[in-house]
């Protein structure tokens, strides 16, 4: 009986330690895997390229929106994406862009048809409406 009690206590302590260790481990947040806060801290954005980025060809990406403070997925009312080459002061063709919400996933969108007309550094300006507030996050990317 004593052996059983000791074993139970040991299992309980191990579980407690295990839980404690999980709480102390660095959380896998959008910030830790790359992401950017919007200008007025309305949201946090993570942009994952699924195709590209390419120049003079279409690329695709996934946009994931999170609460700026807690990095929890948040609902987004509208999204617009404008690639901009700041160093040369111009944009690019946008007529092929398609932004579609991912079914069943809060704050997640796919964007196809991103066309970067030339190679070099681009700013991907993502403007979203969240809880009635419009804000913009800028993701820097270099196209080959």
């Amino acid at each position: 009986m004593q052996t059983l009690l000791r074993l139970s206590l040991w299992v309980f302590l191990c579980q407690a330690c295990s839980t404690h260790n999980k709480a102390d481990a660095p959380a896998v947040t959008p910030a830790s895997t790359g992401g950017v806060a919007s200008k007025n801290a309305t949201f946090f954005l993570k942009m994952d390229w699924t195709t590209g980025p390419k120049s003079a060809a279409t690329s695709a990406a996934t946009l994931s929106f999170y609460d700026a403070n807690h990095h929890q997925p948040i609902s987004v009312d509208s999204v617009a994406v404008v690639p901009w080459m700041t160093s040369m002061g111009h944009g690019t063709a946008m007529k092929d862009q398609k932004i579609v919400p991912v079914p069943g996933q809060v704050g997640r969108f796919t964007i196809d048809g991103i066309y970067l007309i030339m190679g070099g550094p681009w700013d991907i300006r993502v403007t979203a409406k969240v809880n009635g507030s419009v804000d913009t996050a800028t993701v820097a990317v270099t196209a080959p």
Partner: protein
Amino acid sequence: MRHRRLVASLLVGLLLGSSQAFACASCGSGGDDPLILYPNEVDKVYVGFARATAFKNVDADGRFSTSGGPTNKDTLTLAYGHGFSPRAFVTGTLPWLRNSRQEATQTSLGDPSLAARYALVMASMAEPLIPQVQILVGYKQSMTHSIHDSADLKTELDVFGTGFSEAKLGVDMWFGQLDWLAGAAFNVIKPLPHIYDGVRYEPGLASRSTLTAGYVFSTACKTTFGANLLARGSLRADGVVQTDSEQLNHSVFVTQDWLISPVESWRLSLSRQAAFGANKNTARSDGVNLAYLRSW
């Protein structure tokens, strides 16, 4: 009869000699005024056909990258010049442009420009080491589509200009009295701001420096070569300096002139943009230009 021939030969020789002597450092390089009048010329026309190919983008870090625009850019340039005195002349230039990419092409008139030059110091065969020194002014009116108002940013076929009018002021120095030729020119270029989509864009002040050397093989054959440096300050958008937007372009050129009569010549130029040194926010391209010039 023999006397007449001798006089005619002397006149031809003098005309050819003066034409080869009174060129300038910045003409024929493909980037500045295509048409220059020599002191003995009153009216002159220039018809030139140029093709630029092999485009590569040079990004803000100086790296070559893909250029998604036209693969060929052709330019037919018409220019007319009028001399008011041996020291002063004006020129007007109108380009006609064609952009091509695979099977698709678009054409447009380019940005017209006016330029004037005045010789502060005239060259003299008596003192060949004193250079000709000209001051020059110019203005280019932006009229064509640029990348800022293009309707087709996927191909850029309708992009024919920078989108900004420009005024320039410069000086051109030329040692042209000996068989070996040399010169230097320096222009300051001020682009005028323009509003696109509600944003006021103002390209930075630019300078264009040219170094030229050459050799006169005969009265009818002259070869010049040289290099240009175009340096432009930062772009401003609504007064805000755009990060890393300065431009640099080191280009080279070689020009061959053939005088086929006292009043006619052909000029062939080869050039490469972003050819050497540091280049930034510009494009590499190779150009060939064939021009016919006639004076009256």
